[in-house]
């Protein structure tokens, strides 16, 4: 009796697992009971042959291979890392690359080792995503002078020929978001829910946002909250994003700017559940990536990582890799279904602001360093 119960428990457990894996025509979970020895063999044998076919021939100079390493973020975060990965994939397709692959870093100590995994296979272009990887990228560039590195969000203090920092004027798109937020707000209170202030681009977004809002309404109240955790959790904490957004809304905010990977997405989705609250996304046009937030998502403060990565990869393939810093495009995303909610006056103001930012007659008030 006891054994039968145990067996049933085991099977139930397995059934739960299979169900949890998305139910893609699962294999029958029947071979559970006895197979201890088989496993040992399974695990030990198949090293060699498999590895060889996986390595391809990236070491061949004529063969283009593009690799991407994230910091502890994930390539399906629907914003930052995902846009970089899409850029790498599209570049690979356009340039006819033989291999395009990514590694999500699990342990912050492994940045260098993960870059080396690609470098040692002879990859030609390695995209490292995130400010936190800056040092490891520069170090790797010294070790592998023949490989071009694209460092997303990594401002280069000294220009190296084989590292290009893909950087953005986040403060400018943040400023536009702030102008939009203050123009839409009825309550006179707007909020921002942000990844950690350890990352300068996040601070740039927020400072621009605040000054943009103040430029429209000098008396506006701004509730800005940075994630208190370290780099390891700040961008992967949607629960914190949601509760922080809810708090800001209960304190009167009626526009929420969510900036910080999955953390920011949590804030957007939470805002969508409150009537009369607008939300603004970040990095990519999040209308496409966070459909749960359509109810409130009026626009996104974009930094166009995807085309930036494609441009730099193309330059690298053509032997025109610039080195130093490369400024990618930034700005506001379309309003999509909320086109009518944004009055012509606001649109004109945004256009004027954009022009002013471009010709330098308007400054965002963000001054790093």
């Amino acid at each position, binding site marked *: 009796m006891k054994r039968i119960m145990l067996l049933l428990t085991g099977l139930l457990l*397995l059934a739960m697992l299979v169900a949890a894996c998305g139910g893609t025509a699962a294999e029958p979970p029947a071979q559970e009971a006895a197979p201890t020895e088989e*496993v040992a063999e399974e695990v030990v044998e*198949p*090293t060699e042959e498999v590895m060889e076919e*996986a390595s391809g021939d990236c070491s061949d100079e004529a063969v283009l291979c593009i690799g991407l390493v994230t910091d502890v973020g994930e390539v399906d975060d629907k914003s930052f890392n995902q846009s970089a990965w899409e850029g790498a994939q599209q570049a690979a397709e356009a340039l006819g690359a033989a291999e395009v692959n990514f590694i999500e870093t699990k342990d*912050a*100590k492994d940045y260098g080792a993960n870059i080396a995994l690609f470098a040692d296979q002879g990859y030609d272009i390695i995209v490292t995503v995130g400010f936190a990887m800056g040092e490891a990228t520069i170090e790797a560039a010294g070790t592998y002078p023949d490989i071009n590195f694209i460092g997303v969000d990594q401002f280069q203090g000294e220009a190296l020929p084989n590292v290009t920092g893909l950087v953005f004027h986040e403060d400018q798109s943040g400023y536009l978001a702030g102008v939009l937020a203050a123009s839409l707000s009825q309550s006179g209170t707007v909020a921002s829910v942000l990844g950690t202030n*350890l990352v300068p681009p996040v601070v740039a977004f927020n400072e621009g946002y605040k000054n943009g809002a103040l430029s429209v309404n000098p008396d506006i109240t701004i509730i800005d909250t940075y994630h208190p955790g370290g780099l390891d959790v700040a961008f992967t904490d949607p629960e914190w994003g949601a509760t922080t957004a809810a708090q800001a809304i209960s304190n009167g905010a009626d526009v929420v700017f969510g900036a910080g990977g999955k953390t920011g997405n949590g804030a957007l989705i939470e805002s969508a559940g409150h009537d009369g609250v607008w939300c603004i996304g970040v990095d990519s046009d999040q209308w496409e990536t966070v459909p749960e937030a359509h109810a409130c998502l009026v626009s996104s403060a974009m930094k166009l990582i995807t085309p930036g990565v494609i441009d730099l990869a193309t330059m690298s393939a053509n032997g025109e890799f610039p080195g130093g810093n490369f400024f990618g495009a930034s700005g506001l995303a379309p309003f999509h279904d909320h086109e009518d909610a944004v009055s012509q006056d606001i649109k004109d103001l945004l256009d004027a602001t954009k022009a002013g930012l471009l010709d330098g007659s308007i400054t965002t008030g963000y001054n790093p360093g």
Partner: protein
Amino acid sequence: MTSVPAQDKGKDRAIGAVRRIWRSISVPLVAVLLGLLIGGILLFVSGANPFEAYGALIKGAFGTPVAVQRTLEKATPLVFSGLAVAFAFKAGLFNIGAQGQLLIGAIVAAYVGFAIEGLPAIIHAPLALLIGGLAGALYGYIPGVLKVYTGAHEVIVTIMLNYVAINITDYLADGPWKDLSPGNVVARTPKIQPSAEIPILGNIPLGFIFAVLAAIIVWWLLYRTTLGYEIRTVGLNASAAQYAGIRVARMVILTMMISGFLAGFGGAVETLGIVGRYQPGFNAGLGFDGITVALLGKTSPFGVIPAALLMGAMRAGASQMQFSAGVAKEITDVITAFILFFVAADVIVKWLIRQRDSDDERIMLSSGWGGN
């Protein structure tokens, strides 16, 4: 039946020893295999080839000398935190606070490493290690004293002290001890002096050798000294120990301090041997995984080493597995969780391999929770 030849006696003894070893390792071993099996099924269901994935995992962990080095590097702090948890266990204490003690040890060692200049390496590195360990011991002293004098349960106290440690270290790394070198904006301490670095001998990190030595010392302390005997007696039955004249209060505090020392020492080794500075987030989970390692090693000092090596190998190989087989990095966590599940629910494993319980090798989880 009159006289058994001496030869046979020796043979019997050998068979007995083998049987005893098998008894103690069979459950963890089968648990590992079951964990890998379920992981393989998961890999298969998610569309990857389990053979290819495990092949890549093994290649990433043992395929090259550098891979072996990385496995050892990843295993080193886990040996220390595993020893810390296992040691406390012997006195019936459940030290969930290895993470906090490790963080404190790591940052204090970093401070000694970067702030003191001009010492020769032969003094500087050992000094930083020792002070890191002592800082961990001090941090373990708190829950020990609170337990003895107020009855506050060490599980609760150590869990809460982990958060205190995270915030103390975050503050120090972003405040008084922050790296002020030009261009740095992130929270971290300056790099340690070269004289405080722990070298790598060929492909063997010296820290790992320390870890093995620590396991031997802990074993010796527990099983070959009076102190160890008293600690184990307290763990088996605190009331009886008290009645027998053992000063239980002192033993509890001392045990928590030694446990904290081990964890803090592990943090110091990590700082001085791998990271080269303290940086928040870089030691995440090392102490918590010590609990897994200790349970998987059946709280035996020598069991901790293979358990830590297994976890280290999975961490070292995880990137290679992503790279070659396109497997999500979380799969290794899932496998670890299942291994732990089968170790904890050893009745399933024992039923599978038809092994009967014998009381002396049971891990008494309850003595940690229900203790007095």
